[in-house]
């Protein structure tokens, strides 16, 4: 698979996830791209196993996961931990 095909497939997955908005989920808003504060991973470890979750970047990018996130979700969390995250509930 070449990188363009891979890119388009990844985008389709991204769009699919972004469309799975659920108001019962926890939302996390990314506010500051230069976040270097305490690890957000501990916070996620406490909430991820009890509920589903959703991230929302400041400019509208969204992604979400289930109550038992697969390993890839932790990778997302590690990526997201580079940013400032603030939970809020809808």
């Amino acid at each position, binding site marked *: 698979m070449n*990188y*363009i095909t*891979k*890119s*388009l*497939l*990844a*985008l*389709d*997955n*991204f*769009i699919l*996830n*972004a*469309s799975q908005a659920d108001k019962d989920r926890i939302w996390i808003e990314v506010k500051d791209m230069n976040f270097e504060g305490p690890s957000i991973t501990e916070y996620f470890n406490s909430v991820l196993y009890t509920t589903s979750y959703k*991230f929302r*970047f*400041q*400019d*509208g*990018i969204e*992604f979400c996961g289930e109550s038992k996130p697969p390993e890839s979700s932790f990778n*997302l969390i590690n*990526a*997201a931990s580079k940013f400032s995250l603030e939970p809020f509930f809808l």
Partner: protein
Amino acid sequence: MDNGYNYVLHNAPFISSWSNDEDIPKRPNPYLGTGYYFWEFDVQQAKKWGNARYKNGYYGVEAVIQTSDSTFLDLVGDKQNMGHLLLLATRLANAGLINKDFKIGELLEYLKKADVVQPGIFPYKIIRAQDYRNINRSSKLYFRALEGFTYLNPVHIFCIIQPDDVILSNKRIIFQSLF
């Protein structure tokens, strides 16, 4: 001394940052999003830009940019790359994730962040685009009388998203303005 010859030579290029915060008065957003910008073989454009933007003087820095197929989004010479970006934009717009009237910088910034969430969406580290604004008659060569032409003095912009020693080498200062 900061901003002196040696400082610039050692630290160049300098980042141009994108901001989504329209409330903060600042310089306009860079054309291709956050990155390190060069003109391709175009000292004239570099001087024009420097004169317009840096009233207290500036240096012009030259470097060799090393590209590779999978990380170079070439919107000048690669029709496959152009089609790829259009497809990404169309799908995002159809899904309602970006506005239909987006600017290219907004699109690229969105794709970079989407790539953090879903790796592989935007694998690029270098972008090249053409600015079609200024086309002068003397550089147009017609195929037939007034029937389409090719253009021999285009303005090409390079945006390096994340430079390293492989992508960027042989830096040197090639001119400086009056300080």
